[in-house]
């Protein structure tokens, strides 16, 4: 029973996983520390889907917000979130931390 489930799971992951592995998902990471994003300017390739991981090293929650990217998501204190973004047209996409909008600012630059 267990091995059967396992083989089904393996088969499924082969089917579902293969294309995304072939596409080699791009991953980028932003870090929040002392209510500041690092890096503040993140370069990504235009026209490609990618994952953006936002790691919050502060003890307090932050909200990643971007009107340009249509995203808003809470990052718990000491936690991390992943956003699936793109494909983006070439350009600059601003984001900010809604809870600390003065200090927590940055942009994604798609080239």
């Amino acid at each position, binding site marked *: 029973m267990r091995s059967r489930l396992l083989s089904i799971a393996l088969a499924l992951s082969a089917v579902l996983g293969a294309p995304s592995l072939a596409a080699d998902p791009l991953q980028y990471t932003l870090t929040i520390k002392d209510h500041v994003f690092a890096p503040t300017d993140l370069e990504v390739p235009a026209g490609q889907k990618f994952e953006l991981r936002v790691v919050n090293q*502060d003890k*307090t929650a932050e*909200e990643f917000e971007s009107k340009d990217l*249509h995203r808003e998501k*809470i990052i718990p204190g000491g936690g991390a979130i992943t956003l699936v973004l793109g494909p983006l047209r070439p350009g600059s996409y601003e984001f900010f931390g*809604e*809870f600390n909008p003065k200090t927590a600012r940055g942009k994604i630059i798609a080239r």
Partner: protein
Amino acid sequence: MLAIAIIVLREVLEASLIIGIVLAASLGVVGRGAWIGGGVIGGLAGAGAVALFAAAISDAFSGTGQELLNAGVLILAVAMLAWHNIWMARHANEVTREANALGKAVATGQRPLIALGLVVGSAVLREGSETVLFVYGVATSSSETPIEMILGGILGIAGGAALGVALYMGLLRIPVRRLFAVTGWMVLFLAAGLASQAANFLVQADLLPALGQDIWDTSFLLSETSIPGRILHTLIGYAARPQGIQVLAFIATLAAIGLPMWLIVRPSDNRGRTHGTRQDGKLAYKG
């Protein structure tokens, strides 16, 4: 302090305006205070729980827990608003009579109060949990003194509440006979706007296609982050830069609630008309 007040105000605003609309829509209905108050209290309790378990929720469903929770709560609210409006259309006769009675200061009537309670609860839950997380964050960081923080928070909540009260008082100036027609329209647009927000969260969870990033861009005219922008965002679903799917969700919701409202014959509308056998037929179905 002012920065805190503005952030809190932005968070509280939507819930406050929704409470204002719901209060006006249920004017004169016995027991509305208990249901709406219950919705606020339930929403606050839920907001506390969501804030407390923010990390667990965020990690749930392979990292899309927040989006699914937000979308779920929004869709529940849309469904309850739809129920309210369709109920109102079906009971137009009683509601008109009730409104006339209200004019004579007789408070009677009924309404699907549970729907309105849930609408209020869901609004308070969504906006409240963010407020709790924000205020907690400010409280534990040292950049603001406790007094500044408390004053900012109170100012923000008071400002948000004042706008909700202003909306309610404004609606009360409408002759009671017409009030429920106005609140019906407001509920319709409120529901469509919330559906558009839900669609946005489902795109963010990678469950729906965006169908185009910026269908239009009116952020130079009215930014969605400004207070007037936020007010219109809640009241009529204003979006400065909507994604295609948001526009679609908005229109689909308008149609899904609006069409049944129009199709259900309202007998009071027919009384003045001498023609229209089709309407008579539907009247028989209703009666």
